C-alpha cells in the first residue's frame, strides 16, 4: 500500500459533448515528484483544475489525506494544503514581487480591523511586527536563492516570462501546503532557468515536499520525476517509473498519434 497524500478516484468531467476527463484514477505518493504527462488535450490541466476546485467535478472523488475535496471552493482547498502554479502567469501584476509573496504566507490580511489598526495600538516591537519582519526575511532568502533579489520592489507585470515563472513558483512554495502542483513549470523558459528549476524541485523533494507536475518536456520530466502518469483522451493509460515509461509502446503511440 502506497502512502498517498492525494488519491483520485473515477474522476469525470464533461465540457458540453466533450469528455475531458474520463474515469480517471491515480494516486500521488507523499514525498515524491509525480509527473502527469500526455499529448495536448489529454486532460492534464483539467485534472489540475478539478483538484484545485477551479472547475467543478461531474463525478468521482478527490481525496486529500483521505478527505474528499471534490466539491469544495478553491480557497478552501488551498487552505487544506494544496498550492498551485498555473500554466499562464497569474501573478498580481500591479503589485511588487515582495507584495505578491507577502500575500501567500497566511490569511491574516483578511482580518480587516487587525489589518487596519495594525501597530497603532501596539508597540513597534510587537509580535506582529516581528512576524512581518521574519516574513520579509524569508522572502529575501528565497529571492536570494533564485538570484532575483534586485526584483523585489518591481511590479510583477514588468518582469520577463522566466522571472514571472520563478516568482510564481516561490509564491506557491510560500503558500502553506502539503502538496505542490506545478502546471508546466519549465515551458518556454531558457535552458539555464530550466536547470535552476530542476535543481529547486530536487531540493524540495529532498526536504520532503510532495510535488505533482504537468510537463511536456520529456527529458526534464524523466529526470526529475519518481513516478510518471501518462494520460490520453482523459484517461490514465500507463503509469510507472521513468525508465519504464520511456520505452513503453503505448506512450510512444499516444505521442505519435
Amino acid at each position: 500500500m502506497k502512502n498517498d497524500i492525494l488519491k483520485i478516484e473515477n474522476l469525470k468531467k464533461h465540457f458540453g459533448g466533450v469528455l475531458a476527463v474520463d474515469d480517471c484514477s491515480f494516486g500521488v505518493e507523499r514525498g515524491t515528484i509525480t509527473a502527469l504527462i500526455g499529448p495536448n488535450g489529454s486532460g492534464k490541466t483539467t485534472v489540475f483544475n478539478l483538484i484545485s476546485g477551479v472547475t467543478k467535478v461531474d463525478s468521482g472523488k478527490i481525496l486529500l489525506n483521505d478527505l474528499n475535496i471534490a466539491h469544495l471552493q478553491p480557497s478552501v482547498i488551498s487552505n487544506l494544503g494544496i498550492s498551485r502554479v498555473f500554466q499562464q502567469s497569474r501573478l498580481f501584476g500591479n503589485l511588487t514581487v515582495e507584495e505578491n509573496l507577502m500575500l501567500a504566507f497566511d490569511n491574516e490580511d483578511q482580518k480587516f480591523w487587525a489589518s487596519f489598526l495594525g501597530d497603532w495600538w501596539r508597540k513597534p516591537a510587537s509580535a506582529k511586527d516581528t512576524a512581518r519582519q521574519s516574513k520579509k526575511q524569508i522572502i529575501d532568502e528565497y529571492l536570494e536563492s533564485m538570484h532575483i533579489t534586485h526584483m523585489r520592489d518591481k511590479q510583477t507585470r514588468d518582469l520577463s516570462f522566466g522571472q514571472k515563472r520563478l516568482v510564481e513558483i516561490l509564491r506557491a512554495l510560500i503558500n502553506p501546503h502539503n502538496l505542490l502542483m506545478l502546471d508546466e513549470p519549465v515551458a518556454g523558459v531558457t535552458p539555464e532557468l530550466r536547470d535552476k528549476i530542476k535543481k529547486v524541485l530536487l531540493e524540495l523533494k529532498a526536504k520532503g515536499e510532495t510535488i505533482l507536475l504537468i510537463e511536456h518536456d520529456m527529458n526534464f520530466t524523466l529526470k526529475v520525476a519518481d513516478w510518471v502518469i501518462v494520460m490520453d483522451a482523459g484517461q490514465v493509460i500507463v503509469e510507472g517509473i521513468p525508465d519504464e515509461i520511456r520505452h513503453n509502446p503505448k506512450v510512444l503511440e499516444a505521442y505519435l498519434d
Partner: protein
Amino acid sequence: MASAYIIHLLILICIYLILSLSLNLSVGYSGVLNLGHIAFYGLGAYTSALMALAGVPFLLCLLAGGLVAMFSGFLLALPTDKIKGDYLALVTVGFSFIIYSLMLNLDEVTRGPLGLPGIPRPSIFGFGFEDNFSFLILIAVITLAVYFIIQRIADSPFGKLLEAVRDDELAAKILGKDTFKAKAFSLAISAFFAGIAGALYASYITFIDPSSFSLMQIIPIISIVIIGGLASLPGTVLATIILTLIPEALRFVGFPSSILGPMRQIIYALILLLILIYRPRGFLGKVELE
C-alpha cells in the same frame, strides 16, 4: 462676495473628494466597477435629511446616513461572487436606477420630485455650522479624516489583498483568500463614505431632490477616479480639484448658463478621452487593468 463663491467651491470640492476617494477604494483598489456609488450618496443624503427633519442630532444623522449606505453596499456586494466585470457594472447601474426610482416614487417618505426642503444645517453639541465658512471647516476636517482612513486601508495588508483580488481573483482564491468577503468589505466601506458625503451635501444645500442622485451624476465622479489614476489617492485629489474648477472657469469666459451644463459634460468626456489615449494610468496611477 468673491470669497463666498470660493468657500462654496471648496465645499463642493470636499464633497466630491469624499465621493471620489471612496469610489476609488471599490473601483481602483478592489476592481469592482461600481457605478452604483451615486445611489449610496443619495441613500446617505435622504436618510440623514429625513432624520434631521425629525429633529435627530446631526452627528447621529451623519452616522445613520453612512450606515444605511454601508448596508446597501453590502447588499450590492452579494452578487459579486457570481457576476464579474462588465456584467457586474450593469448590476450596479440597475441598483442605481432602483434607488433613484424609490426616491422619486416613495412620495410619502421622500415627497418624490418635490424633494425635501428645510433640512437643518449641522449642529454639534450646540455649536451650529450656519455660515458657510464654519461648514467648510467641518467638511474639510471630515474630508481629511476620510483621506487618511482610506489611505490607511490601502496601505494595510487588507488593502494589498484588495489589489490582489483586482489583479487576479482566481489567483487570490488559489492562495486561500476569501475574495468575496474582501470585495464585500471594500464595497461596504466605500458606500459608507458615500453615504457620509450625501449627508453632508444634504445639510449643506438644505434641500435635496432625486435629480441630484440620478445615474448621470456618477459620470464626473468615475471620470475623476479614472483621470486621477486607479488606486492613487493623490491622483484622485488632483483630478477632483481640476475637474471641479475647469467647468467653473467657463462661467468667467462668458458662456451662457444654458450651455454650461452640457459644456461640463463635454469637457469631462474630452479630458477622459485624452487621458485614456495619452496616459491610460491617469495622472498619478500605477495600475493598469488588463
